[in-house]
């Protein structure tokens, strides 16, 4: 157990959406691009982190982020203020879902079975704490995984998580709690197997 300050590990992205940036009603594409970049590029790490945890593959995550930013720019009119990071992460999540559907169709007959992707306990036995945790997060069903990432890494309030994952706020609370329990069980199991 460590008690290192979270600020050192997690980028402080709170309040990154500069209030002074005016993006509404911009017609000139270059001006729109400038406003969009100012609002959304600061969240590139958050977008990548979420995509990476959801897709569990570095190259796929980069594709998803790339596509997400293009989609976000295309639908920039749909951003009506509020937390720009949440808005962007919503786009990332939706892009991931589209990507996964496409992948499933491409791989036909072989659905991306979440459980199959879990790391076998024997393989994880020799790994360090980080690898154990990573393996356990990866083994979580995606609806648990995304909520955990949004809360523990992006430190988003339940309200924002609910908006991103299009869930009622109460469901966020219960699902997050179950995700944590599952994760703890998994880590405990693996620690015991070591």
């Amino acid at each position, binding site marked *: *157990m*460590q*008690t*290192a300050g*979270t600020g050192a*590990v*997690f*980028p402080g992205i709170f309040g990154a959406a500069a209030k002074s940036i005016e993006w509404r009603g911009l017609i000139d*594409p*270059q001006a*729109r*691009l400038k406003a*969009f*970049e100012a609002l959304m*590029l600061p969240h*590139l*790490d958050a*977008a*990548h*982190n979420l995509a*990476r*945890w959801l897709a569990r593959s*570095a190259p796929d*995550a*980069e594709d998803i*982020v*790339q596509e997400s*930013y*293009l989609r976000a*720019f*295309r639908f920039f009119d749909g951003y009506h203020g509020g937390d720009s990071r949440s808005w962007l992460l919503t786009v990332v999540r939706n892009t991931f879902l589209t990507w996964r559907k496409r992948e499933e169709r491409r791989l036909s007959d072989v659905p991306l079975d979440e459980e199959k992707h879990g790391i076998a306990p024997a393989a994880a036995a020799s790994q360090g*704490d*980080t690898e154990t*945790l*990573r393996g356990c*997060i990866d083994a979580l069903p995606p609806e648990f995984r995304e909520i955990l990432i949004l*809360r*523990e*890494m992006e430190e988003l*309030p*339940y309200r924002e998580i609910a908006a991103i994952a299009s869930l009622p706020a109460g469901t966020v*609370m*219960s699902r*997050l*709690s179950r995700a*944590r*329990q599952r*994760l*703890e069980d998994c880590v405990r199991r693996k620690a015991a197997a070591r």
Partner: protein
Amino acid sequence: MTCSRQWIDAYVDDELDPSTRWQVEQHLAGCESCAALRAEIAARHEQFRTLAPYYRAPERLRQSVQAGLRAEAAGPRRWPWLAVAATVLLAAGLVWGVRRGRERELLAQEIVASHVRSTIGGRLIDVPSSDRHTVRPWFNGKLDFSPEVKDLAAEGFPLAGGRVDYVGGRTVAVLVYRRGNHNIDLFLWPSDTGGGSESQRNGFTIVHWTEGGMSAWAISDVAREELLRFRDAQMADFSKKQ
């Protein structure tokens, strides 16, 4: 208020409304196992935040995202398609131009041959007449079109008659005009293509033009300027009628 994991999680996350929060606090104060759970949950949070890797975006991703956005902001990229289309058109045009050029070359050869043959064989004129009202009806039944026969006597090109010949894979009308002692053969047939040209071949001048859906080829041993004047007279007559 039961000792619920869910409430403690939300409590640790500071996501409870004040009254619920107060209730949980009251409960934690009196429940050792719940207080222990709270401590464990808080520790787990710290563990998670310390151990779980946060995947920062690599620099190249930042660059490619920005490049993608710039391209998107520049609007749909029309020019590559324009370039492709232009290249295809140019290639097609070149092929077409070469083919057309070759066709014209062949036609000119045939016209020269026809002109020379008619002079040698003395079969220059099938219907000798200076009256266009005689010459034009003569073509009826011999051609699948009716050529315009113009009287250019006033311009110094009296009509001498006409004949039918076979040029470029089809029967064509040949009108024979005179300029002094020289003959001018005017080949006419219907054609969709436009354009014009002039060239010298075997001592003959060949002038080609199109008007009113007809391809016209004039050949003669008169001076080039004379033949161009003949052409202008023909075209002027045409535009007079329009």
